[in-house]
């Protein structure tokens, strides 16, 4: 039998609306982390930015990135800065968006357990079928050499994460 290399570490499906989801005391036994999210928020808008904060670091200046974005009619690219005490992980459908649609996020935290480099995060997020559909790819640098031990997710404009949103954390063996 092949050796599994993508190890499930934690999982949460929200049974009720919540303001934050936090993974703490993340095992340091892996090379990379993968976080798969399907999310929607309660904000009275079409969409809301989902914010990811690393190790409780709320300094926006510590998160920088580059993004490419496709709306279906226009393609764009821009440099991104930290916002809301973390980095923008994607525009999730919110209360005014198409009913029943959740956004999808796939995050890769490369070399997360090392202490010798700033951390690189690859992000693919998509909101097809929602009121504001996008396909997007982002790369983010967290300007810290500290190993990643916690991840906190929350709505960037004060909306709660909607019941039914899912968060799956995996460790990848080198």
């Amino acid at each position, binding site marked *: 039998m092949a050796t599994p290399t993508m190890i499930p570490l934690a999982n949460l499906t929200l049974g009720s609306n919540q303001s934050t989801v936090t993974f703490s005391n993340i095992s340091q036994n892996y090379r990379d982390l993968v976080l*798969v999210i399907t999310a929607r928020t309660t904000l009275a808008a079409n969409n809301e930015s989902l914010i990811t904060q690393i190790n409780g670091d709320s300094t926006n200046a510590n998160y920088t990135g580059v993004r490419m974005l*496709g*709306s279906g009619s226009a*393609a764009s690219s821009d440099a991104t800065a930290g916002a809301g005490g973390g980095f923008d992980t994607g525009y999730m459908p919110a209360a005014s968006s198409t009913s029943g649609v959740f956004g999808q996020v796939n995050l890769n935290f490369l070399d997360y357990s090392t202490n010798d480099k700033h951390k690189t995060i690859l992000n693919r997020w998509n909101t*097809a*079928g929602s009121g504001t559909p996008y396909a997007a790819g982002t790369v983010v640098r967290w300007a810290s050499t500290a190993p990643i031990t916690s991840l906190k997710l929350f709505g960037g404009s004060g909306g709660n994460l909607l019941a039914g949103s899912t968060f799956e954390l995996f460790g990848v063996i080198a």
Partner: protein
Amino acid sequence: MRLIETITVGAGGSNGIEFNNIPQTYTDLFIVHSLRSTFAATQSLNFIRVNYNASSIYQNRRIEGTGSTTASWSQTNDTFTVVGVNPGANATANTFGNGHIYIPNYASANYKTWSAEGVNENNGTAAYQIVASCAWHNTAAITQITLADVNSPLVQYSTASLYGITRGSGGATVA
């Protein structure tokens, strides 16, 4: 991540690769593919359809780069979603495209979404990279997936592998 099935197209080509009777025991699905089309062009798009469902309930947004241009495309209420691009019959010989598709919560009772990336580097003047955002507005569990070329059959040696991913339990706090 566990391999469920690998399918390789045999001699004579195939109209598509079909994963049938997908086990419902995983949390997410992941497909990796390497495809080439018989379409008489340099490239051709590939797509997936699920559960043999051809209703006009598939949504898609994608961004595309060719090495010289960028574009964004959309599908609204379509009968499939584009997930990548294949070299066609006029592309450099023996080159195949590559791509992967991630489908979270494929057995849930919610609408389904998936993300996809595909490339078709072929040593030509243009090669495509696509990042796609897809949705299927149906609450049924996904039990079958068809991966195919939009225009023509796939050539021999095209291959795709389907993996199942199982989530962990607990480990997160809410507030």
